[in-house]
């Protein structure tokens, strides 16, 4: 045993031994980025997942762009928008915008992209979001597009900014995946080469428009490599083969950030973590979770502050609402259940469960958080068995209504609006909705089709206060994003947690 301990002692010094010999990347003006996920498709119109958003921000433009500092949508290739009536939006394009192949952007390209996405043959992942509200896009003149809507939809501009990337007219005519490998975008970087699953090489596009909200773009080249193994990512960062990694666990980030050539950058994130409880009784109509006292007891049992502070660290916050406090409409005045295990036990006894009950809790990420939740629930007398596995298993079980409670997280796709979390979790047809309160569903759906922001705010307030009073969820915390970056790099972060690589620059 002794010799193993010595090995451990020797190995403990490695972070400092490794910190020598880093290669300079500022010299060749190339930012080397590692993703844990494989990049298999360059066309964000056909993908989801955060890695693709980061990439798409570099190579694509939508009509609008989200300004994280001002928390508003700003014109990008469009100059602005105007509601001609509640069901018609008119958008005008800027002059002099060109695709990476040099051709000029016209209204025809924009209309083509939108109409194709909602068309029959489209395999776009944006289809379901857009076809809810868009009837058709019509070319008015070469710089003007009119969007005819099916219903009032206050988040149309958000969808235009975040979801739809503009393609040249005709791109998808022969193949719905035509832009997966050969992408001609409008963004600040153009694709030099792409090996699916391995590497994307980008270089700054000379013809990128100067008025873009993404300007000033400073770094000349960006190389994105897929390194699925976190150990490989860390080793590459140490040796200077990579300048930037994200989704780093807090412990790794803090240990590696201590090395002289690596900075640990923390930002807040719109993602929140929470427990969803089967309040409706899908798993058992008479089950303990159908009792509001039991659900409140569980809210009192969890020490949110401890999890946010010690486990998440950095920019994590305590959350007591079914939405992120930074989101529009996320009323913070709703019921807040303080950590009070005594009260939790008392409520359980009052509900008729003085000796607790058996609970199966599902989780799919952040195992340590799940383990802390289990321990806290057991501390007030609930017997918990933890089913920690992959997302696909959790979702299958949830779709089959076999889940009593799960530890879920939701990032709202970076959208600072309660709409981005409420409908998914409380609409009638979502299996994430385990409370099935028609009142909440009505409020959430009404807010979606209300243009007036004050009314919308009020609708969400009412919905959120019912959710809190009925304790359908145990909201817990907001996440922090940990980035590890080369000390040569200046990497700004934003409240929504989305990494904007085009804003990076060399020190």
């Amino acid at each position, binding site marked *: 045993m002794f010799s193993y301990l010595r*090995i451990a002692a*020797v*190995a403990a010094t*490695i972070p400092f*031994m*490794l910190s020598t010999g880093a290669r300079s990347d500022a010299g060749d003006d190339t930012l080397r980025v590692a993703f844990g996920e494989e990049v*298999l*498709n360059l066309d964000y119109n056909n993908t*989801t*997942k*955060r890695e693709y958003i980061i990439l798409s921000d570099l190579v694509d433009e939508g009509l609008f762009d989200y300004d994280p500092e001002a928390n508003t949508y700003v014109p990008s290739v469009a100059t602005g928008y105007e509601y001609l009536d509640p069901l018609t939006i008119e958008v005008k394009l800027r002059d002099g915008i060109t695709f990476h192949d040099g051709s000029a952007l016209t209204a025809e390209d924009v209309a083509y992209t939108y109409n194709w996405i909602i068309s029959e043959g489209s*395999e776009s*992942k944006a*289809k*379901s*979001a857009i076809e809810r509200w868009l009837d058709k896009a019509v070319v008015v003149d070469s710089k003007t597009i009119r969007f005819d809507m099916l219903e009032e939809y206050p988040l149309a501009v958000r969808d235009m900014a975040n979801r739809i990337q503009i393609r040249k007219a005709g791109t998808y005519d022969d193949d719905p*995946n035509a832009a997966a490998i050969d992408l001609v975008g409008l963004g600040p970087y153009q694709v030099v080469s792409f090996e*699916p*699953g391995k590497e994307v090489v980008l270089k700054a596009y000379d013809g990128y428009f100067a008025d873009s909200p993404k300007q000033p773009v400073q770094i000349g080249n960006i190389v994105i490599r897929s*390194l*699925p*193994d976190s*150990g*490989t990512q860390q*080793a590459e960062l140490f040796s200077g083969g990579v300048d930037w990694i994200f989704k780093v666990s807090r412990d790794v980030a803090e240990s590696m950030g201590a090395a002289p050539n690596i900075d640990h950058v923390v930002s807040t994130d719109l993602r929140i973590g929470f427990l969803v409880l089967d309040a409706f009784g899908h798993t058992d109509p008479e089950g303990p979770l159908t009792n509001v006292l039991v659900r409140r007891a569980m809210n009192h049992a969890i020490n949110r502050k401890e999890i946010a502070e010690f486990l998440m660290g950095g920019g994590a916050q305590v959350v007591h609402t079914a939405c992120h406090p930074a989101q529009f409409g996320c009323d913070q005045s709703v019921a807040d259940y303080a950590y009070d295990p005594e009260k939790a036990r008392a409520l359980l006894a009052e509900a008729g469960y003085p000796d607790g009950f058996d609970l199966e809790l599902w989780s*799919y*990420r952040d195992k340590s958080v799940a383990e802390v939740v289990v321990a806290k629930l057991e501390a007030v007398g609930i017997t918990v068995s933890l089913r920690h596995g*992959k*997302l*696909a*298993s959790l*979702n*299958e079980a949830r*779709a089959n209504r076999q889940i009593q409670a799960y530890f879920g*997280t*939701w*990032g*709202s*796709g970076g959208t600072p609006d309660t709409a981005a979390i409420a409908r*998914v979790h409380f609409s009638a*047809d*979502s*299996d*994430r909705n385990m409370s099935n309160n028609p009142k909440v569903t009505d409020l959430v759906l009404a807010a979606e089709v209300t243009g007036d922001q004050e009314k919308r705010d009020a609708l969400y307030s009412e919905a959120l206060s019912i959710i809190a009073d009925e304790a359908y969820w145990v909201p817990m915390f907001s996440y922090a994003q940990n980035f590890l970056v080369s000390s040569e790099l200046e990497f700004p972060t934003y409240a929504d947690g989305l990494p904007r690589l085009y804003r990076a620059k060399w020190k």
Partner: protein
Amino acid sequence: MLKYSLKRLSLAVAVAIVLSFVTFLLLNFATDPAQSIAGEDAEPEVVEQIRKTYGFDRPLLVRYADWAGGVLRGDFGESYYWNKPVAEIVLERAPVTLLLAVLSLSVTIIIALPLGIVAALKPNTLIDRMALGIAVSAQAIPNFWLGLIMIILFAVTWQIFPVSGDGSLSHFVLPAFVLGASSVPAVMRLTRTGMLDVMESDYIRTARAKGYRGGALVRRHALRNAILPVISVLAVQLGHKFSGSVITETIFAINGIGRLALESILGSDIPTVQMLIFLFAIVFVSMNLLADILNAVLDPRLRIA
């Protein structure tokens, strides 16, 4: 022999078919592949749309029949995750695993054979005891743990070899050692036993009487006979290397079919899992069969019998 081989192979195919059906059903019951494809923040509508695009909304049996029909035509379907034909992905990655398997088997031979021979030539001496000690230890070390320790020592502390990846031959040194070490005990023990038996045989006694001594005796006479059973065991071990590649490739981030297997299971990439289970079963049986054939060819006594 041919008839026997065919029988064994067809049995393997039968096993593989049953297995593929069972895994297909179970994976479909237990997981939602559409969700794996969509990612954690996908809205329900997106997942529903994927379900339609990939045809997950059709009855299970129809989908299985679809898959089986494809296999009969040599088409193993398209990976949900990679959006490419599974056969293409497997073909792309198999050479890496094959290289790893062959390299690790070489490691086994380089360590186990000399150790076994020396141990047999000096039975019950310190060398013999050390050889046995190595065998007992190698058998007890968890393979994945040995891999991690090797990374900590050779890749991080001393920085002799790369941490992980498969870019160059030096990337294969540590994984080949780790995977090769797992077969050392079996091969070493067998070599030692074989050598001991041969050295005791009349035939060697005669050679000794004729004046052959030491190295020449071992090289010319004993080794050839002692090694016969070892060769067939090596064939079996080569099959095991493919199975062992799941863990080794995962730890060293090598893009072979072993790691593909783990990722496909965890990611509910059902077509890929099915083809790999098929492939692994056939490799296993073929290697066992090869061992039998080698035995028969190499050992004249068995051929007569």
